[in-house]
């Protein structure tokens, strides 16, 4: 795309992109560490994750301030307008991802026994997928790659499917042994947080699509999360 007649406008837009890249890097880092902390019951790491969330929040505020100033000052049109609106939206998704990572870290502090092995493995696998998705979507944003964004958008259903199985497994633990309810509830929320991070990632993918094409994706995203309609029944003994 051609450069602006007013070159400062280009610099201001580049600044927004840089802030998104920074926020994205931090969100990835925070999310990865929060899972590591939960999986290894590492309280010290969890504390660090909780303390570091503030950084993402401040970047989001900074981006928002710059974006508002840009709109007021430059009265952007077409692709420029989309770039600014999309930067605001993506930054808010990244900020939420930061919050969810922080919440996972907090649950580490609440769970004081080792996680059941298969649950741990399931959640790790979920997190791995979600991290990969997040990293891919940030890459798609940096390179304006609509195909890659599309890939992320479609692949979210894998996380949903894993969340289903972790959810069912935690239910059986709780039904078998009521003493695990406390821990399992925290883990359930933890798994839900990972699933939500996946959803924010697909939001970002949709925004990249809008940024590049100017249109909204048509149709429904494939969804596999059936937990909200799964009945909880006592085990037949």
């Amino acid at each position: 795309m051609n450069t602006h007649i007013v070159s400062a406008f280009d610099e201001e837009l580049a600044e927004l992109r840089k802030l998104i890249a920074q926020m994205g890097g931090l969100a990835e880092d925070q999310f990865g560490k929060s899972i590591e902390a939960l999986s290894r019951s590492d309280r010290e790491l969890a504390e660090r994750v909780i303390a570091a969330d503030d950084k993402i929040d401040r970047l989001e505020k900074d981006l928002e301030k710059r974006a508002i100033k840009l709109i007021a000052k430059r009265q952007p049109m077409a692709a420029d307008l989309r770039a600014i609106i999309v930067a605001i939206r993506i930054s808010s998704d990244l900020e939420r991802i930061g919050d969810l990572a922080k919440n996972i870290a907090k649950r580490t502090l609440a769970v004081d026994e080792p996680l059941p092995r298969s649950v741990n493995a399931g959640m790790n696998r979920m997190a791995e997928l979600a991290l990969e998705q997040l990293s891919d979507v940030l890459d798609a944003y940096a390179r304006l790659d609509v195909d890659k964004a599309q890939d992320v958008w479609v692949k979210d259903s894998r996380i949903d499917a894993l969340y289903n199985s972790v959810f069912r497994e935690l239910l059986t633990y709780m039904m078998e042994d009521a003493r695990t309810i406390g821990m399992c509830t925290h883990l359930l929320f933890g798994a839900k947080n990972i699933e939500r991070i996946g959803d924010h990632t697909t939001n970002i993918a949709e925004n990249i699509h809008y940024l590049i094409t100017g249109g909204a994706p048509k149709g429904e995203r494939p969804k596999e999360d059936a937990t909200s309609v799964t009945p909880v029944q006592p085990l037949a003994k």
Partner: protein
Amino acid sequence: MDAAVAEKPARFETVMTPAEPAIMKERKPKIVTEGVTVHYGDKQAIYPLDIKIPDRAVSAFIGPSGCGKSTFLRCINRMNDTIPTARVGGRITIDGEDIYDPALDVVQLRARVGMVFQKPNPFPKSIFDNIAYGPRIHGFARNRTDLEEIVVNSLKRAGLFEEVKDRLESPGTGLSGGQQQRLCIARAIAVNPDVILMDEPCSALDPIATARIEELIDELRENYCIVIVTHSMQQAARVSQLTAFFHLGTLVEVGDTEAMFTNPQERRTQDYIMGRFG
């Protein structure tokens, strides 16, 4: 799990801008042009141009200086007839009637197609006479009462009446710039036009006077076909429903205003409205 993904080949399908502007489905076309060209002597100012302009809506012509938008606007009420070297080709119809038909009365045409210019140009007469002039020469008023009614109604529709009702006999040139422009709009609507052409009507006005004119344009579109040439992209975005982008004498792109300013299809339109080097 992967099989489930493969079963649903959900692609991002983009909902793109339709080829025909949505506004044309809601309004009947008022002005239709086919292959319109304009030459000034040897120089071609407009290359064959086809456009449909909707009734009861505001259409904005945008484009860099010298792109032909004003030249084209002037074809619609045959203002180019007054320039000896200008030649207009092709066909322009209003309500299906060819306005370049030799049998057509140009004076009648200009009553049907009113024009408002960049700089307010009231006659050096009283406010009342500025507006009464047209109805008088066209014989629209049978008596003084009729004439007064036309003047008052036109001033009211132009949103100027309250400000000038106590000084209708004072000169129109004594009004502020924004008031003078609204006086010119009142003068244009006094002769009951169908179409109002506006050539950068706010470029000589301050932001408050501009806002008043824009508000007025928005009210007038219920009853008129309005075409506005403007250099302000924001103004085009605010007041119009259809936007046409001109460049180097050609119509590059025409579409619903909303689509034109959020997602124009043509590269040249994008560059122009975003203020990028073309």
